[in-house]
């Protein structure tokens, strides 16, 4: 059973058991536009909630991807090196950024669920 949560910075995190997968939302990719470069963290890297975890670049600008929760990276998506545009075409699937283990499950529970994120999107588009 998986559970997906969202941050105000438009990252998603999907928890499956005690392992999680992190990426950016469809809204985020549409705001960034055509993605031309992605830098993902190496396996074993410790990341702290809210800290810079990855970089995503469009033609125009570079943006940080923040860690939704604290923990340890177990895998970066190597496939994005040659095909960064996967983040545009499939942001919540093949376009994932990294997998991680959580050091504090309560941080996950504190994030927005789908309904709360949808409401948040409506608020910022208003």
């Amino acid at each position, binding site marked *: 059973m998986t559970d997906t949560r969202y941050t105000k910075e438009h990252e998603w995190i999907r928890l499956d058991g005690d392992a999680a997968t992190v990426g950016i939302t469809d809204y985020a990719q549409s705001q960034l*536009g*055509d993605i*031309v*470069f992605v*830098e993902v963290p190496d396996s074993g890297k410790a990341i702290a909630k809210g800290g810079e975890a990855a*970089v995503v*670049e*469009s*033609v*125009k*600008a*570079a943006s940080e991807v923040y860690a939704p929760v604290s923990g340890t990276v177990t895998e970066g998506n190597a496939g994005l*090196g040659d095909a*960064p545009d996967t983040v545009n075409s499939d942001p919540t699937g093949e376009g994932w950024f990294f997998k991680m283990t959580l050091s504090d499950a309560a941080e996950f529970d504190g994030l927005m669920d789908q309904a709360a994120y949808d409401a948040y999107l409506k608020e910022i588009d208003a």
Partner: protein
Amino acid sequence: MPDSAALDSLLTTPLDALHRSLGAKMVPFAGYSMPVQYPLGVLKEHLHTRAAAGLFDVSHMGQADLVGDAIAVALESLVPGELQALKPGRIRYTQLLNDDGGIIDDLMIAKPVDGDINRVHLVVNAACKDKDYAVLQAGLPEAKLERKDDHALLALQGPEAVTVLSRLDTECASMPFMSLRPATINGVDVVISRCGYTGEDGFEISISAADADAVARTLLEQPEVEPIGLGARDSLRLESGLCLYGHDMDDETSPIEADLTWSIGKRRRAEGGFPGDARILKELHEGPSRLRVGLKPIGRAPAREGAVIEVPDGAAVGVVTSGGFGPTAEGPIAMGYVATEHAKPGTRLHLIVRGKALEADVVAMPFVPQRYYRGSK
């Protein structure tokens, strides 16, 4: 994001309603609300311009006439470009200089088609308008500056631009690169220039604000044409090795350092007679201490403006002034200034991005061949 008060104070161009109806994403730029991209997106807008034709709203640029006795001769006291030998109907790219030889702005100066020696046409950068006009008035107090703030400027750029515009103005196809002439499009008086900021063949159309929307819509109805925003305008000019004022040059940069020596006429190099000529002629003969160069990162990661440039042993030798991804170059590209001893093409340098050294080679610019119109084939 700018607050709503800041947005409210922005100027709009005569094409504002058109941009919004096309779904443009509007951003503040040089005091104007401008389209940074349309639904097509920066990457496809860029590629479309290189493949067919793109329409840009560049109405934020400063258009003006300068009127005064033998104005081209007088204006040579402020710029290093050869203006006296410029023929009627021809355009010169040059720079307004300060007394230290630094660049106040880069601009286009044209002579009227009718041969009037007491008038020149100017196009200056949006963000520099007020500054430039003040410098021109202070330097040439006898001359009269006629601002054309009631005019829009459209740029139609790309290999199909000439095909498209020929449907509306049959004579544009034979116009030389860097020339202008008055014309009529859809019954409206315009001035058409064959120039641009993309490295492609193309035209700029100066038109009264009241008529701009209709002509822009007519151009957009042509099957080859897509609207293009500032995002792609920036990546197109970067690929073409063209400077952006305030980034790749500023009031401390000389035209020699900026690798714009080609824009200084032979007679001007011999005679001087422009602000900062002592420094500029010295740099011309002895070489500048730093030089604008093209930089090609070896990997996929782009280096952006502000990235420090180091030699492989770690000493800083320069800084990136424009950088990003070149959609046609299909990889990261940048330009920046380096100490002249490291400016030779083929030199391996490091660009410091997020604390890491990114390998890059100094390369000759442009990154993508320029395809200006050079006469009938």
